[in-house]
Each structure stands twice: as structure tokens, then as C-alpha cells.
């Protein structure tokens, strides 16, 4: 053991000197060194690991998975870096499937499980290529891509609202209900017709009401949704975006989603996806993303990526029954026995960043494998379980991860950016939409893109639009507003707003509630009408860069200059959808009575008006012809008439 320590000391010295050289050009190495040092300083954290270390002195106590966090972050800021890094290490296959489960224990005691499945296929759907042989890539989606000339397709189904204040940022944000945005190729001539057809086809594939997407809820955002894959087209005429906030997501959407996986729900991580548990949760979201990617750095051969994700948050209170522990079995009522045989990589990551000393929770079985990644501007540490290794499953041939909480405090988080929205006012004539955007960064301001798509039946008074932060008028630097047309298209409002540091920015706009035609009301008009979530896209300053307090274990050499590993990262925040009551006739007996009464009054009014305005006089009956002639003659004679 002593020799072992000595070797560490040598390592330490080596890293010290190395860091001294590297500190100027890149913080990445310094930081990993920093973590390594902290691991060295506190080696006996895990009893089991220590035991194993004692048995096999040659093995390090904690191994770091080969990773370059910076690469990962550069690759794509939107997606969990951990997934993207694997790209560099995988062999160049014609098609390739990977699966991952990321588990993040949340401060509130809840647990966040995020499944990621990725199929990469080196083929070209573009330029009218006929693709007919499918292996891992689902044929139904492949056909959709080629038939409708889709460049990128993002679809998500979400049940519930992501509680940013309690859970932090999700790996992949999505609004409540269904969201669909598609970039078409520039060869498409009639985008609207293709869009209409595509939504109907997708509606069939995912067993969802996507066919309710029509021109009244489709918009073309000019700036908020940029292509995520390789693309040289940024003309937003080829972009369509629509949300259905009322869409209810349930098992019938989950089953077709699972069928798109190469292993279905038979093997691999997908065996955990049992609907009776997935829908016994606080939040459920499933998504499909298709985009073209580069296979290599020269981007000579394009490939298509299909990424299926499923996020779920389990609630401690409703399923805890007093015991504060989570296990795979308890969460999903299944344990893992094998990886998907078709997968080139199959891993479980557990976020242990806040738990270096196991003061918050205990992880059983422990794993020696660690992994670091910069996720959402924060450097996170993960325990890694590789399902392709037989040793992961242990002697019982099944993996049932157990997380036992030691302490939970449900305090609120202060995420750097979060937003909320509500309808102000009362009565059924007018109202006001308030959107609040919080910038909790202590000293940096940043810009956000706000996208609002409001249905036509809320008639926005755009002249009442105000943007205020800290009590002062905050003029947006870019506004794109497309007014609505009744029954044809919604309002679209996009703004680039600068959020001052440590402030709340309030966007208000007044509206009038339209009176619909009586056939336009939904079957439950008194429930109200939904307005989809606002989308706030921002480049948020990274927390890694902001970390200036020295309370954390840091080496002296690495903590002098504020590090600039990631200056900012991309975040998309969705606000809650709104439920707005419109003036609704009472579609029941009294309504009929009122209609009848009004008719009677309308009929009666004529007669009454007649009575009031005309004067009635008794008229003499018409004199006969003979009498009239006689009168004329008498008049000529100057005699009084008869």
C-alpha cells in the first residue's frame, strides 16, 4: 500500500509540472488533473473499491474512462456530451447502434432517468436516392425521410412539465404535449402540402393526434430553430414548427416508439421501458430526432442519425413509501440482464457529481469506472456501468442498481435561466399574457430568443407589447412579428432580448378573446383553450466559467484565473402552456331558452315598435265612384260636397 501511495505521489508531482505548462492554453487538462488530485486525496471513499484495490494493487482505485470532455462539448452543445464522444472511438461501420441510460439523482429526492438510443447509418436519403435495404434503421422512418425530402425531423411527446426550479435543466428539453419541427430540403416545392402530408403520416406512425396540425397552429420561426445537423440551408421557408399542447401521451404512443428500436423491447436497456411504471411518474417525455451528420472530420460521407430519447422523472413522495431508495427494479419493475446484442455500446451513467464522498446517496453495486463530461455548461462526473461487459452483471447475472439516499433537502434551485408564463386579468373580454424570464447569473447578461406562437382566437394587441427588466424598458434588438389571420394562421412573435444580470425580464402583451362560431368550439368548451408554450433559446454563460468561489476542493495552481473552458452553452427553455377561457355560450337547455326568447323578442319587437311609432286613426271607408264624380261636379259648381 505504501508503494502504491508513493506512485501516486509521483503522479501528483508529474501532473503538477504538466499542469504548470498547460494551464495557459487549456483548462480542460487542468481540471481533469484537479479532479484526479481530489480523487487521490480522498482515495478511500468506496469500501468495495478499496477492497478490490487491496486485492489487486495494480488496478487503480478509480479508473477514468478515455474521454475528452472538451471534444464532447464542441461536438454539439445541445446533446449530452457523453453520448457524442463515443463517436470518435467507434469503428467505421455502415450502421451502428448505441444505447445509454443516464440517471441523475435530483436534489429534491426525485430521480431523473434519461434513455438515449442512437442509430447511425452511412447512407444518403437526399437527392432522390432510392434506399431499400434496411438493417438497424427503421424502415418506416426511412421511407418518410425519402418520400417527403426531410432534412431534419424532431418530434417529442411529453406528459407533464419540467420543473426547472426543482430539477435543474433537462438533457433534452421539450414542451408539454406534442412538438414537431421539420426542416425540408430545398428541393421541396410545395412545403405546406408536404408538411400536411407528413404530419398525417407521422400521426399514423406514432399513434398520436398530429393530424390536428394545420395552418392555424403551424409557424415558421425565423431564428429560434436552426438545423442541428449538417446543413447549408437556413432559409426558414423550409422550416415548419407546430405544437399541440393538449396532446395526451400514453402507452399507445410508447409502443410504436419502442418498435423503432433495433432490439424492440426484448433486450438491452429497452426492457426497462414498461408503461405501467413509466407513467407512474412526475414527468414523461419521449422524442425522436433525425438529422444528417458527418461521418468524419472532412465530412466526405454523410450519414443519418436517428436518436430516440426518453426522459422520465420518478417522484420520491408518491412511490417512496417512506423508504428513501431507488433501484432499477423499483423504478422500472425490471432488472437488466444483457445489453442489446445489436448495440456496439450499451452503458448506464449515474451522475455522482454532487456526491463525491457519498454523503448524499449510496450507490450499490459500486463501479470503478468513472467518466467526466461537460453537460449544460457544468462539469459532471458519472459512474459508468458497461453492459457489454459480463462482469457488470456480477454473479447473479442481473444488474439492479440501487441508490440509497442519506439526506434529501428539497430546496429550490436557482437555474441560470428559467421562465414562467401566465394569463393576467379577469373577465372574458380581454386579458394579458405575462412572460417572465429570470437571469440568475450574478454578473453576466445574455441574450435570449423568445418565440411565441399564439392562436388566432386570442387577438394580440401588439402595440401593448412591453419588455421591462428591473423596472426599465428593455428594447428588444430584433422583433419578428407575423400577425394572425382569423381561422388561417396564428400569431408569431420572435424577439431577441438582452437579459441583464440577476434580473427578471417581463414581457407583456394584451389580447382580446374572440367569439368563435358555434361549430368551432371544442366538445368541452368550458375547459378552456390551450396556448402552446413559449420557447426561449439562449446561449447561457457556463457555470464552470462562473465558479469563482474557492470553497470547493481546488488546487492552488488551477484556481487563480477564472477558467474559461466553455464560455457559454446552449439552452432551450419552454414555459408552461396556458389555458384560456373564451366567451362560451351555454350549450344546454338555458341556451336554447335564451335563443327562443330572443327570437320571440325579435318578432315582438317589430310589432311593439310599430305600435309606438305609428299613430292610429279610424279612417272613413272609401266613397263610391258615383259619389266621387258627384263631388267633383259639386266642387265645380261651388256647392259643398256630399
Amino acid at each position, binding site marked *: 500500500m505504501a508503494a502504491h501511495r508513493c506512485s501516486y505521489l509521483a503522479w501528483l508531482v508529474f501532473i503538477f509540472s504538466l499542469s504548470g505548462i498547460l494551464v495557459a492554453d487549456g483548462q480542460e487538462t487542468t481540471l481533469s488533473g484537479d479532479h484526479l488530485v481530489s480523487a487521490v486525496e480522498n482515495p478511500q471513499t468506496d469500501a468495495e473499491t478499496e477492497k478490490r484495490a487491496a486485492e489487486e494493487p495494480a488496478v487503480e482505485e478509480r479508473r477514468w474512462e478515455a474521454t475528452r470532455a472538451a471534444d464532447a462539448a464542441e461536438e454539439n452543445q445541445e446533446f449530452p456530451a457523453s453520448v457524442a464522444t463515443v463517436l470518435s472511438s467507434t469503428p467505421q461501420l455502415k450502421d451502428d447502434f448505441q444505447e445509454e441510460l443516464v440517471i441523475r439523482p435530483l436534489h429534491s429526492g426525485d430521480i431523473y432517468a434519461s434513455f438515449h438510443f442512437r442509430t447511425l447509418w452511412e447512407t444518403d436519403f437526399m437527392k432522390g436516392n432510392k434506399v431499400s435495404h434496411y438493417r438497424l434503421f427503421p424502415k418506416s422512418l426511412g421511407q418518410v425521410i425519402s418520400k417527403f425530402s426531410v432534412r431534419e425531423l424532431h418530434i417529442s411527446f411529453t406528459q407533464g*412539465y419540467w420543473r426547472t426550479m426543482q430539477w435543474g435543466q433537462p438533457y433534452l428539453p421539450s414542451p408539454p404535449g406534442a412538438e414537431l419541427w421539420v426542416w425540408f430540403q430545398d428541393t421541396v416545392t410545395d412545403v405546406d402540402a408536404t408538411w400536411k402530408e407528413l404530419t398525417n403520416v407521422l400521426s399514423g406512425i406514432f399513434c398520436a393526434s398530429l393530424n390536428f396540425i394545420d395552418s392555424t397552429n403551424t409557424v415558421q420561426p425565423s431564428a429560434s430553430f436552426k438545423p442541428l445537423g449538417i446543413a447549408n440551408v437556413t432559409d426558414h421557408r423550409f422550416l415548419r414548427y407546430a405544437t399541440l399542447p393538449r396532446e395526451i401521451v400514453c402507452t399507445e404512443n410508447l409502443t410504436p416508439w419502442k418498435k423503432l428500436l433495433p432490439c424492440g423491447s426484448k433486450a438491452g436497456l429497452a426492457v426497462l421501458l414498461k408503461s405501467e411504471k413509466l407513467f407512474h411518474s412526475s414527468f414523461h417525455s419521449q422524442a425522436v430526432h433525425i438529422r444528417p451528420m458527418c461521418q468524419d472530420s472532412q465530412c466526405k460521407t454523410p450519414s443519418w442519425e436517428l436518436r430516440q430519447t426518453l426522459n422520465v422523472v420518478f417522484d420520491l413522495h408518491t412511490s417512496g413509501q417512506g423508504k428513501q431508495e431507488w433501484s432499477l427494479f423499483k423504478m422500472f419493475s425490471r432488472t437488466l440482464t444483457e445489453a442489446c446484442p445489436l448495440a456496439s455500446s450499451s452503458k448506464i451513467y449515474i451522475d455522482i457529481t454532487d456526491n463525491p464522498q457519498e454523503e448524499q446517496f449510496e450507490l450499490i453495486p459500486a463501479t470503478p469506472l468513472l467518466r467526466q463530461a461537460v453537460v449544460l455548461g457544468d462539469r459532471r462526473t458519472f459512474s459508468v456501468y458497461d453492459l457489454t461487459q459480463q462482469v457488470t452483471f456480477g454473479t447473479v447475472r442481473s444488474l439492479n442498481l440501487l441508490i440509497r439516499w442519506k439526506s434529501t433537502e428539497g430546496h429550490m434551485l436557482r437555474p441560470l435561466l428559467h421562465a414562467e408564463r*401566465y394569463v393576467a386579468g379577469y373577465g372574458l373580454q380581454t386579458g394579458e399574457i405575462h412572460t417572465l424570464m429570470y437571469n440568475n447569473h450574478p454578473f453576466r447578461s445574455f441574450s435570449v430568443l423568445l418565440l411565441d406562437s399564439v392562436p388566432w382566437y386570442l387577438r394580440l394587441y401588439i402595440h401593448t407589447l412591453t419588455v421591462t427588466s428591473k423596472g426599465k424598458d428593455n428594447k428588444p434588438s430584433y422583433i419578428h412579428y407575423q400577425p394572425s389571420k382569423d381561422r388561417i394562421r396564428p400569431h408569431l412573435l420572435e424577439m431577441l432580448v438582452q437579459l441583464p444580470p440577476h434580473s427578471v425580464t417581463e414581457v407583456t402583451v394584451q389580447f382580446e378573446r374572440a367569439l368563435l362560431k358555434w361549430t368551432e368550439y371544442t366538445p368541452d368548451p368550458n375547459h378552456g383553450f390551450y396556448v402552446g408554450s413559449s420557447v426561449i433559446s439562449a446561449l447561457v454563460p457556463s457555470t464552470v466559467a462562473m465558479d469563482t468561489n474557492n470553497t470547493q476542493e481546488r488546487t492552488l495552481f488551477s484556481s487563480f484565473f477564472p477558467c474559461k473552458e466553455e464560455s457559454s452553452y446552449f439552452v432551450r427553455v419552454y414555459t408552461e402552456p396556458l*389555458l384560456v377561457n373564451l366567451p362560451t355560450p351555454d350549450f344546454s337547455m338555458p341556451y336554447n331558452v335564451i335563443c327562443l326568447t330572443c327570437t320571440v323578442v325579435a318578432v315582438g319587437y317589430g310589432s311593439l315598435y310599430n305600435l309606438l311609432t305609428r299613430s292610429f286613426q279610424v279612417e272613413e271607408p272609401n266613397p263610391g265612384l258615383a259619389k266621387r264624380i258627384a263631388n267633383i261636379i259639386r266642387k265645380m259648381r261651388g256647392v259643398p260636397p256630399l
Partner: protein
Amino acid sequence: MGLLSDPNRRRALISMLTRLNAPICMLCYCAGVCWFMGLAFEPFTLRTYMSENAMGSTMVEERFPAGERALATAREFAAHKKKVGGMPVDWLVKTMQARGLEVFTQSFSRVLPFPDENKERYIVKGTNVYGILRAPRAPRTEALVLSAPCSPGDNNNQAVGLLLGLAHYFRNQIYWAKDIIFLVNEHDLIGMQAWLEGYHHTNTTGMKWTPLQGRGGSIQAALSLELSSDVITSLDIVLEGLNGQLPNLDLANLFYAFCQKIGVLCTIQGRLQRNDWDSVSGYSHAVQTMMLMVMKQASGRPWGDHGLFLRYHIEAATISGINSFRQYKTDLTTTGRSDLYRLVEGMYRKLNNLLERLHQSYFFYLMPSLTHFVSIGYYMPAFGLLAVILLLRALDLWVQLVAPPARTEDGIAEIEQQSSPGVRSVLTPLIISHLTGAALYLMPVHFQEMAVEHFPVSETEAVVLTAIAVYTAGLALPHNTHRLVSGEGTEQGWRVLKLVAVLYLAVLLGCTALINFSLGFILALTMVPVAAFVTPDVPKVLSAIVFVILSPACTLLFSVFLFQELQDMPVSLQDGWMLYISVISQGILDHYLFGSLVYPLIALMVYPCWLLFWNILFWK
């Protein structure tokens, strides 16, 4: 219509109406009063039934386990309240957080227009604490509210305990589809007003509040709890809200259904219902219950914290636990508190099942008992019979004004000549009486300081006494003024004025009755006879006395005595007078604090209208 367009028959009809005008009016008045009294007779009323399908057929099972623990929470709350000497905000925040809610606070402040002597407050500062239970997999679009006021003294501790106990239990359930907001509001109605204004970001009353941090979307329904003892014998539901608004009848039905299911005694207006409707005492019981509701509704003030929700189209009611040893002693069984928990739990589970806002049942109703109601279609004829008197009188006056000159050939020109001074003689009293009304509305609050300086009275008394003084001064003012403008009042002049006044009163009462039937009916009951039979020719002194007795202010005085009588708490004249003063000051405060419309309605419309009739009485 054919009848009316035939001049002969029309003439006959009109002559009959003018000839029999007085008897028909008398008949209508009696019929109206009888109709109203008949509303409480059980065979004439409808039985309540649940209209909302989402709450009717789906049965829920209540299984609240921890009544004792909630009682302990209530004691803990009481101890902290005593220690802090007000609302224990920190303790509440901590306790709610421990129960897994998202907790937020809102502070507010309000300077009252004049000190409220009933509740002994002038400058009000406070904090509301509310915790939101987020429904799983719900997108924060709908919410339910459960509130309990943090009252001074030892009141209402048990309600807060109940609220926290329910919060703890509700948090562990998976079936919620709507967020549930648990609100503890300080300074009862003022706190509630601040919270609701903050939630909807409106400011109707000039209150200062800090903006809310957390919301749950559009609120579908709300219950407010009032509970001050560990043991309760019965539960009372309070429905009357601001400006006489009522929640949907289904909310009362829901309450009744659960009382029946759980076996708790339930009351409305603090009165149990009786089955002996055919006996005189049973009928008078029903009449008294209904009269209490009518008087509460007519007062236009919120009779519980729920009353302020109604403005925002949120169905709400107050449920208060009563520990009564006063009456019905033999009928009572002591109700354990867990029954109350199960009742509230059951109600929330049913409200949680709602797919739409409560809209199926009635919004306009009177309740002679909890099982029977009178809908708008049944009670409106009572008012209609009173209002038709005014129209008949108007017709009579019209005929009198038009008929005599119609006999001559050049009658049209003559009418114009006669009525042109008439317009001025009508406009002058109209304007003067409305100015008096405006003075009655503005002066009491704005001149309170001056009054306090010059007279040895407190601010509240100053306000009320100024109001009474302006009111009385108004009686002296207008009946001489028209002479200043148009000389001696003509025969034609008062007829025109009375025609205008009668029609004005008809429209005014009609509109009032549509919004607040009770207020409209009570005003009609006293003002219609005066309006119908006033002429300058009746004996002055006697009619003046009748006039004053039937004036709005005296109506209020009688209502105060009647209300006390109905509540089995008769008061002496002295106490009645004090009560009268405090009722007036409360009415003015309600207007300034919550936007109640009764005070401005009386001051700006009803009183000037009554002054017009007063004017006619002293026309010559």
C-alpha cells in the same frame, strides 16, 4: 298585437288599465310578495341534484388516515402563532416544504380609507404563505385552491392544521390531475384579495403586494376552511360572495353529497334542514333560512374568504366547522375530525376529476334548505310582479299626459309648447339629486379628517355620521330647487318628472335584480309603493313620514334588526343603532377594499332616484 293595433280595442284596454290602475297595482304587489313567500314552500321548490357528470357517477374512496397528527400540527401552529404574535411565516414555509410542496410567500400592505373598528385595523401589513402541490404529469394549466385564514387569537388554528395534514396526505397520492394550492392567508379577506390580485396580476383596489413567484395555471375551484375547535358537531357551507355572486350550485351539491355519504350534519345559514315542511313551523323555518340567504346576498359583501374568488370566475365556498351547544342538542352526535378530513379529501378528489369548469348547474338560485333550491326562473316572477307596477304607473302617466290635448285639432303643437318647460323642470331635479348622490358617495371618506377635527368622534363614526348627515341634508335640498329655475311647478311638470322617475326606477331595479336578485327585490319591496302612489296632492306630513320610513336608509335599518332576529340574536334599539353604524362603515369599507358595488349603487343611483319622488311629494 292585433289587439293593440286596433284603435278601438286599444282605447278600451288603455281605459281599463287607467281606470283599474290602482287595484291592479295593489294586486300585483300582493301577488309579488306572496310569490316570494311561496318560494320557501317545499312543494314549490326543486330538489337539488348533481348536474356535473364528472362529479356524479365517479365514486371516490376517502381514506385519510392521520387525523390525530393533523390535530398535533394545529397545536404546533397555535404555539408558533402565539410565540411570533402573528402569522408564523417561517414555520409555515418550513412545514410546507417538509411536506414536499413548492412554497412561496407574498407580502402585502394596505392603508384602509378609515380605521376599521370592528377588526381594529388601519394600516395592514401581512404575508400570505402558499404551497403548490404539483400534479404528476400535468402541465400546470389547472389548479384547485384550499385556503385557511390565519386569524388573530386562537381562532382557526385547527383549519390550518387540517390544511397541512391534507397537504401531507395529498402529496403522497399519484392521482392528481390538477395542481393543488394550499394557501394560508393573513388578515382574512385583505390577504385573500392581495393573493388573488397577485395571482391574476390585476389591481382593482389600490393594494400593494409583491408579485407571486409560483402559479398553477387557471384555478378551477376553491374551498376555504374555517375551523376553531377540536370537536365539531356540524358543518356549515357559506355561498354568498362579493356583490351577491354565488358559486355554481354543484359545489353545494357536492358538499351535501359528501355530508350524506360520511354522515356529518350539514347546515346552510347555520340551520339544519327539517322534514316537516307541511307544518307551520317547518315552513317558517324554511322561510327564515331563505330570508337569511336573501339578506346576506343583498348585502353584497363576501361572507367568507371564498367570496372574492367569484369575481375571477372561480367557483368557491367556505366550509366552517361549528361546535354548537345552542340548539338541536338531541340530534347531534359528536363528529370526529377525521370525518371532516375525509369530506374535504373526497370533495377535492371529485373536483380533481372535473374535465371542465363547473358550469352545468345553476349560478342564480336561492336555497330554503340544503336539499332544495329555487332557480332564477322561479324567483324572478316575484320581482317581475313588483316591477310591472312601475310600468303600469308609467303607462297611466303617459296616458294622462297625452290624452287631454289629443282631443283638440292642433294638439301636437300644444304638447310641444307645454313640455318644453317640462324638460327643464325634469332635468333640474335630476341633476340636483344626482349631485346630492355624488356628495353622499364622496364626502364621507374625503371629509373625514375635517369631521374629526370639528366633532369629538372617531374616524369611523365621522365617516358614518357624515354619510347620514349628507343623506338627511339631501332631503331638505331638492324639493325647492326647481322653483329657482322654472318658477312654480306645473301640473304637467310633476307628471313628466314622475314618469321619468318611475321608468328610471324600473330600469335601475331591473338591472340590479338581474345581477343581485335579493338586493333588487328588497329595494323594490320598499321603493315601489312609494314610487307608485306619490303625488303632490296627498297629505304632506303623513306621506313624508311614510316616505322616510320606506327610504333606502331606513330599509337598511330594518334589515339589520330583521337579520339579527333571524339569526336568533335579537338586539336592543341601542345596540341596533350601533350595529347600524358599523354596517354602514363596513359597507363603505367593502367598497374600497374589495370593490363591492352596493354602496356606490345606493349612493349614486338609488338614493337620487328616491329623491326624485321626494321632490314630487313637495312639488307644490
